[in-house]
């Protein structure tokens, strides 16, 4: 039989662009919703003639944006409210699972109408893993741009921090947050969880006239990411990321390396925002299926597949120099080279 491997589905390679579109549109919505709210209050006040010139401009712009979709903006624009922490879509409420965990630990009671609002995100996370972090989180957009800024600064010759800590730290943060919430009875996570903070602060800045204390926190996380550890908050500290990693531990949709097409270039490992190691098949529970490694792979050796478990280390890529020279002693552990030898035999026999 011919050993030609199947090429991954062509669109997977472009999924990363779709991801950026999603991230940007979530962010745009977060900015638009406060403006729409102000527009609604202007309508409710029946006071167009009393508005200032700036306010009139805002009113007109919002009227132009919304008039194709709604006939009664004052009521109908209430359809979409909130942010990624908790939102309302045409009467259907969805909340972040972390909000539920935080709220249960703060009140020490199970309030089911609220818990059920996290059901859809919970199941999606169970299937797609930590997808929220890569695809929806409004802070991710800023953090990834921040990473790019860091790369530019490094190119300009500045020293940018690239420390690595233990990724399990964030599970500690999650545990600690629930304990503090239970002891003090207040929702700690809402104050230290970047998407919740950002969603709120954008609303404060636009509708209430200025940033609140959360903006300081968010700026500090940005500086931490830039100066200490790349994407440090998401990797090591974010309680939400910890919770999703736990929920998505046995996620079904995973990314794998097609070892036959891999040339060991290691671009996937250096692009990975979460510091994972796709080159050594080391995805684990913290992969958020962001598909950046698929997009950057020069030989199309990354693809999606359905499985509740990751593949074990498959050895060096088959079109890389290490495999072709048949020697992989230097950096692979003994068991892996054993595995590799078995695979090599298999390959030769086919």
């Amino acid at each position: 039989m011919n050993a030609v491997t199947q090429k991954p589905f062509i669109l997977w390679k472009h999924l990363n662009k779709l991801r950026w579109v999603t991230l940007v549109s979530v962010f745009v919505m977060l900015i638009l919703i406060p403006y729409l709210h102000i527009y609604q209050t202007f309508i409710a006040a029946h006071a167009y003639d009393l508005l200032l010139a700036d306010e009139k401009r805002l009113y007109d712009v919002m009227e132009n944006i919304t008039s194709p979709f709604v006939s009664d903006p004052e009521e109908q624009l209430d359809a979409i409210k909130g942010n990624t922490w908790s939102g309302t879509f045409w009467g259907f409420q969805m909340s972040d699972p972390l909000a539920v965990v935080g709220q249960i630990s703060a009140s020490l009671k199970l309030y089911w109408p609220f818990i059920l609002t996290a059901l859809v995100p919970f199941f999606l996370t169970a299937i797609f893993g930590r997808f929220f972090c890569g695809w929806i989180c409004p802070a991710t957009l800023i953090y990834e741009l921040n990473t790019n800024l860091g790369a530019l600064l490094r190119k300009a010759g500045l020293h940018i921090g690239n420390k690595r800590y233990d990724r399990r730290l964030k599970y500690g943060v999650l545990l600690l947050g629930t304990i503090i919430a239970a002891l003090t009875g207040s929702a700690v996570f809402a104050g230290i969880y970047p998407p919740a903070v950002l969603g709120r602060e954008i609303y404060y800045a636009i509708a209430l006239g200025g940033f609140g204390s959360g903006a300081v926190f968010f700026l500090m996380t940005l500086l931490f990411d830039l100066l200490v550890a790349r994407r440090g908050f998401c990797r090591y500290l974010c309680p939400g990321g910890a919770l999703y990693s736990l929920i998505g531990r046995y996620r079904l949709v995973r990314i794998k390396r097609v070892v036959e097409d891999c040339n060991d270039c290691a671009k996937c490992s250096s692009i990975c925002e979460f510091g994972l190691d796709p080159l050594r098949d080391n995805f684990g529970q913290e992969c958020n299926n962001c598909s950046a490694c698929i997009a950057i792979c020069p030989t199309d050796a990354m693809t999606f597949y359905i499985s509740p478990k990751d593949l074990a280390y498959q050895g060096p890529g088959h079109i890389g120099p290490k495999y072709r020279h048949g020697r992989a002693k230097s950096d692979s552990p003994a068991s892996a080279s054993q595995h590799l030898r078995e695979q090599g035999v298999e390959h030769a026999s086919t």
Partner: protein
Amino acid sequence: MDRRFFLKSIGAAAALAATAPSTGQAAKRNPSLRYLRPPGALAEEDFETRCIRCGQCGEVCPNRCINYFGLQNGLASLDTPYIIPRDQACILCMKCGEVCPTDAIEKVERKLEPILQKVRMGKARVDENLCLSFQGKTCGVCYRACPLQDVAITVGRLEQPHVTDQCVGCGLCERSCIQLPHAIRIIPDYG
């Protein structure tokens, strides 16, 4: 190194957790602040534990009366909604309760009976030394501003206002009082 850092931070975090309750108590309510919670809000303690700080109540408020605490009222009420009636009072539209995902603000139908039963933001109180109607100058602005006219507030001779037990504390009277300092104000009910 990694492991040591990990263990160290767990230790530091545990120390933080141990001190957290005391700081939480120390940063309790600021007595010089007179604020209202949105209509239908639970009693203060319950409200602070139930609220997840999503900010949707403010986003639906058509009157823009709902504002959010910074640190001025202690850490426990950080980012929780409040209303300062003199700045902008509640018009009892009850949209905030409809949108609240945790029912920290309970859902109350926008009808007289449910509002009278469930909403208790506070009670208005008239300072008769300041009120114009009690000084012989017919005013009656608070009576006209009240959304529950003749239920929550009645007027007597010279339109002198009398607040009844039915007052829910929306604050529209305080908002509209033409006296400075205001002669009618809401005494908040934090439950």
